[in-house]
C-alpha cells in the first residue's frame, strides 16, 4: 500500500480517495471542516447525471466523460436511471427544438406520450425524454461514499492541512479554498421543497429564455429546485429575486408547488476555470483536482479516475495539466 494524502472531503476528494484505494493506495483524508456538510459546495448540488443535457451547452468533453458517471456512482450509491424530461412552454417551443437538435438520443414526446410517461405534466404539450440519463441524491451519495471508504479503513480527519508540510504525494481538492490562478466562483442558489402530492420520479428541466429551472426528485415528496448560475463570488443568502424566479417557474411547471413547504434554501460558489472544464493540475508531488463548475457529480468520477491513473500508471488523461 502506498500512502497518499487527500486534502478536502468534497465530492472530488472523496471520489479520488475511492479510486486510489481501488488501485492499491492508502489515502489519508484531511478536511478542516471534517466530513461533508453544509460548508462544502458538494452539499448543495442537484445530483443530476445528465451528460446529454449538459452537452447542449458545455464542451463536448463533458458529455463524453460524463457518460460513465452513472455507472461509477452505482458502485457506491443508489442511482435512479429514469432519464430526464425537458419541457418548454408553448411560446418557447423554439427553445425545445434547438435543445433537441443538440441532444442526441432524445425522444420527442407529444401530449399523449407525455401524459403516459408523466400524467402530472400533461399540460405541457411539448417535451423531450432523454432516457440514458440518471440522478442521485447528493447528500446520500456522499454518505455512501464515506461508508464505502470506511469499509476500507479510510476516514476523514478534521484538521488544517498544508500540502507543503506533508510528505509524499498529495491530492488537493479544496475547491474555492485552493485559490488557484484563474479559478473563479460561480454563484448558485437552490431551494428544497416538500410537495407530497407531486410524484415526479425523474429530473425535469424547464427551458425558458430568462428563468430556466430544474427540479430533481429526492424521494418522499422532496424536490430540489435549482439553480441559478451567476458570475459572482458573493456568498450571501439566496436573493428574493432568485426565490421569486425559481418558485414562479416551478409553479408554471406544476401549480401544486405553490402549496409546498419550503424546507431549505442554499447558496454556494461553484469553483470553475475559464473553460468551465475541470482539471487535474500537476505541480510536482501535488495534484490539484478542481474546477468542477456545475458538474460536480457528473465529472468527479472521471476527474478522480484520471488523477488516480496518473499517479498509478503515469497515464496522461485529457484532464491532466502539468504545470
Amino acid at each position, binding site marked *: 500500500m502506498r500512502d497518499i494524502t487527500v486534502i478536502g472531503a468534497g465530492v472530488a476528494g472523496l471520489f479520488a480517495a475511492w479510486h486510489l484505494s481501488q488501485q492499491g493506495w492508502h489515502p489519508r483524508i484531511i478536511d478542516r471542516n471534517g466530513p461533508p456538510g453544509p460548508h462544502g459546495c458538494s452539499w448543495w448540488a442537484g445530483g443530476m447525471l445528465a451528460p446529454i443535457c449538459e452537452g447542449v451547452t*458545455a464542451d463536448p468533453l463533458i458529455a463524453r466523460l460524463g457518460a460513465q458517471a452513472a455507472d461509477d456512482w452505482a458502485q457506491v450509491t443508489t442511482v435512479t436511471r429514469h432519464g430526464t424530461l425537458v419541457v418548454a412552454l408553448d411560446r418557447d417551443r423554439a427553445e425545445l427544438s434547438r435543445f433537441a437538435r443538440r441532444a442526441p438520443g432524445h425522444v420527442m414526446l407529444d401530449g399523449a406520450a407525455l401524459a403516459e410517461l408523466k400524467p402530472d405534466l400533461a399540460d405541457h404539450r411539448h417535451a423531450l425524454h432523454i432516457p440514458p440519463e440518471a440522478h442521485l441524491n447528493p447528500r446520500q451519495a456522499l454518505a455512501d461514499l464515506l461508508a464505502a471508504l470506511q469499509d476500507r479503513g479510510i476516514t476523514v480527519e478534521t484538521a488544517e492541512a498544508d500540502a507543503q508540510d506533508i510528505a509524499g504525494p498529495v491530492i488537493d481538492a479544496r475547491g474555492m479554498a485552493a485559490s488557484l490562478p484563474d479559478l473563479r466562483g460561480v454563484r448558485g442558489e437552490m431551494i428544497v421543497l416538500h410537495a407530497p402530492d407531486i410524484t415526479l420520479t425523474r429530473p425535469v428541466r424547464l427551458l425558458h429564455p430568462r428563468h430556466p429551472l430544474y427540479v430533481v426528485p429526492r424521494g418522499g415528496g422532496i424536490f430540489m429546485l435549482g439553480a441559478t448560475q*451567476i*458570475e*459572482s*463570488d458573493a456568498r450571501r443568502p439566496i436573493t428574493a429575486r432568485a426565490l421569486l424566479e425559481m418558485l414562479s417557474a416551478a409553479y408554471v411547471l406544476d401549480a401544486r408547488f405553490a402549496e409546498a413547504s419550503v424546507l431549505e434554501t442554499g447558496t454556494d460558489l461553484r469553483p470553475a476555470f*475559464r*473553460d*468551465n472544464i475541470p482539471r487535474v493540475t500537476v505541480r510536482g508531488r501535488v495534484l490539484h483536482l478542481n474546477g468542477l463548475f456545475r458538474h460536480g457529480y457528473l465529472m468527479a468520477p472521471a476527474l478522480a479516475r484520471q488523477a488516480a491513473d496518473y499517479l498509478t500508471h503515469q497515464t496522461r488523461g485529457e484532464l491532466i495539466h502539468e504545470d
Partner: protein
Amino acid sequence: MRDFYGVTLDSPLMLGTAQYPSPAVMQQAFAASGASVATVSLRRESGQGQAFGQIVRDLGIHILPNTAGCHNAREAITTARMAREIFETNWIKLEVIGHADTLQPDPFGLLEAAETLAADGFEVFPYTTEDQVLAQRLIDAGCRVLMPWGAPIGSGMGLNNRYGLRTLREAFPDIPMVIDAGIGLPSHAADALEMGFDAVLLNSAVAQAGDPVAMARAFGLAVQAGALAAGADPMGVRDMGAPSTPLIGKAWL
C-alpha cells in the same frame, strides 16, 4: 465613422458578455468578432464578482456597462453609479424595462434616468424605441448617442420597423446610433449598417449559437460588409428591371 462621446471605434460591433458556455468561449468569440465594445450587466453578473469583471477587462476593449434588468429610473440610476465605480467609465448603456414580457423600454423612466445621469456627468447610451419624439427628448436631456431597438431583446427578429428606423436615422443625421436588441443573424447586422446606423449591439445571437465563435466571426464579417456598403453609396431601388449593359449593338443571335 461617427464617434461615441469622443471615442472612435475600430469596429461597429458591440458584443454582450452574458450567456456564453464559458468565459473561455466568450474570449474566443470576442477575438473572432473583432468587436470594439463589450457590454456587461451589473445587476446580476459581477455584482460582487471580481473574477468575471476582470475577465471582461482583460478583453482589452472598451467596456460599456449596462443597467439590464432595471425596471424604474431609480434602480437604473443606482446601478449606473455602481457601474461607474466598478469599471471606471462614464459610459452607461441605460436600459429601463417597461414590460416584463417584451422587455420594451419604459420611455418615461428612461428619460427621467437619462436627465439625471447626463447631469451627473455620465455619457448615456439610451436603449430606446424608434420613437422620434422620445429621441428628441433624450437628445435634449444630454444624450449624444441613441440606441434604438431592432426588435424585442432576445427575439432575434432583426429590424422590425424599417420605416420607423429609417425615419429616425434621417431625422437625426448627426447623432451616432446603435441598433441594440433583436439582432438574430449577421444579415440583420449588415442590414442595420447599410441603412446608415453606426453600430450594432448584440449578445444572444452569438452566445446562444451552437458555435459561438463561428457566429462571432460571421457577425464581424457582416458588420464590415455593411459598413463598407454604407460608405460606398448603395444604388437606389427601382421599380423595373434595368440593364447593366447597353442593348444597342448587341448580337441578337
